[in-house]
């Protein structure tokens, strides 16, 4: 079985979020990047588990510039066999999906894994687009995936329950919590990652369909106001006049 895992970077959760260029660009200065947790903990690890039990190979693909190679090496250290980097800034979801789909078409994979979303942009779009471009089924928000020959049984988390889907390979799946457990790379894996192939390919021609107008930060949390427990009138007044929720 051949598995392709889409790996993208995300700022470490302790990073300071700032914008430049008139609030149209995220300021990357001083930001530490990590592997997007949904890609690393769930998509990659489940692909590795399947490879370990069924044989085959796990390839990772990242649309990004040379600075992304540190997160790619981490994916290799965790256990992927080889990696591909499409040498371009990942401008928008369509561009990213297009590059991944081009590579997947040319190389043929049984399952393409993505994370359910990136923790910075939360777009959840790439997986669905890749599936469409490959003309394959797409299963989103998978929390469990079992494979029996070419038939997969996948659990999808829904509000208040679980949906169980059956689908045949090849397909695209986006991975959510529950798919697998985070793996900490070990020192041998880190050393092995040094010599694993990381192929850099140039992007296929593709127009950007979207551009970012502006970014803004959520309003800072205001300080907590305490109201005496027996002063209901004051509470109602504040909720009405200040919070404007009643």
């Amino acid at each position, binding site marked *: 079985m051949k598995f392709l895992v889409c790996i993208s970077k995300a700022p470490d959760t*302790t990073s300071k979020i700032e914008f430049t260029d008139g609030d149209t660009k995220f300021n990357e200065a001083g930001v530490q990047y990590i592997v997007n947790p949904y890609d690393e903990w769930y998509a990659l690890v489940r692909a590795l588990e399947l490879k370990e039990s069924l044989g085959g190979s796990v390839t990772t693909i990242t649309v990004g510039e040379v600075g992304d*190679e*540190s997160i790619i*090496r*981490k994916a290799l*250290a965790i256990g992927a066999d080889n990696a591909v980097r499409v040498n371009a800034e990942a401008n928008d979801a369509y561009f990213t999906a297009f590059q991944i789909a081009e590579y997947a078409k040319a190389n043929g994979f049984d399952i393409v894994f993505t994370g359910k979303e990136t923790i910075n942009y939360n777009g959840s779009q790439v997986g669905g687009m890749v599936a469409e471009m490959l003309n394959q089924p797409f299963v989103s928000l998978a929390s469990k995936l079992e494979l029996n020959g070419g038939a997969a049984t996948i659990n999808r988390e829904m509000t208040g329950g679980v949906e169980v889907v059956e689908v045949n390979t090849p397909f695209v799946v986006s991975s959510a919590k529950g798919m697998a457990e985070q793996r*900490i*790379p*070990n*020192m*041998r894996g*880190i*050393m092995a*990652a*040094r010599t694993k192939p990381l192929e850099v390919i140039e992007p296929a021609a593709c127009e950007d369909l979207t551009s970012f107008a502006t970014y803004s930060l959520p309003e800072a949390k205001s300080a907590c106001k305490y109201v005496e427990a027996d002063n209901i009138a004051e509470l109602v007044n504040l909720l009405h006049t200040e919070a404007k929720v009643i």
Partner: protein
Amino acid sequence: MATDQYTHPDYYNMDDLLSEEHKLVRDAARAWVKENVSPIIEDYYERADFPVHLVKGLGEIGALGPYIPAEYGGPGLDQISYGLIMQELERCDSGLRSTSSVQSSLVMYPIWKYGNEEQKKKWLPKLASGEFLGCFGLTEPDHGSNPGGMITNFKDKGDHYLLNGAKMWISNAPLADVAVVWAKDESGRIHGLVVEKGMEGFSAPEMHGKHSLRASITGELIFVDVKVPKENLLPNKSGLGAPLGCLDSARFGIAWGALGAAMDCYDQALRYSKERTQFDVPIGAFQLTQKKLAEMITEITKAQLLTFRLGQLRNEGKATSAQISMAKRNNVEIALNIAREARQILGAMGITNEFSVMRHMANLESVVTYEGTHDIHLLITGMDVTGIPAFKRDIPQ
């Protein structure tokens, strides 16, 4: 203990000097520690119990003999990576780091450097995976700072050696599968012998009552006419320089490790100083608290620079024993001072097991003594700069 929120301070952007691989190594060690050790360490420490199940885990992540080449089961990392792993382990507990540095630098290192091919093939892979636990017997009841005076000895009996004597204060000893034991031959020259668990006449009783390194197991090694096969003698180096070579490697790891303990104390004290209010303000607003914190981060930053440079020298094979002594001595001393200051910032909470500060402080009392005491390292620096050894003296009659 509360959730482990540790992040390392990096006032001089030292991380820019590390490679991506170094950072991966450090992150992996930190993640493993936070998941597997932080939640249980206080409990083991309090009960003075050795978390033996962690040995396999240390092997799995590659923290046993990090610089041992892949052909012998190690990950083959560089010296800075070794230092970073020791730092992450000791950041959590000096006992955990002791287990790992004894196995790495005092057991695997001599087998790797002084052993023959058969010995390396026989023991290194099992020690690297954590299947085997090892210990290092140099100190004797009457010979601590002066190991050259040891009385443990062996005699050549034709087809085997006959080993007699006793070692004391030996980390990992009671549970060890193999012991690298330093003993004198009939001419008085020191050699390393690998003594295996179960050899007749060999016992390793546990030593109790430690107020320090309580989550590390310590014991004696007793040899009564132990027949050691000749193939267990490490052939490629002898003399006091052989065990001292191992100590160089271990002390290098301790320099990094003790700094880890210091950074953990600082990290907790800094966080606490922003959260704890007295007289209506965070205690971090008081100049006296700021003085403590500012001095701590200054000492940590100086030690980081010292340690990193030592790592580069060690990678190039150029670090001298005296340079390693300086770093071990300095870093343990600043760690002890920082632990004490941090404990004050934490007030009464600082003496509880809600925080690791008091445990670090007690642990560091062993670290300042073992692998060469604080004063012995001072004499090493003194000898290095003056050229005059001041270890021995005659008492005037």
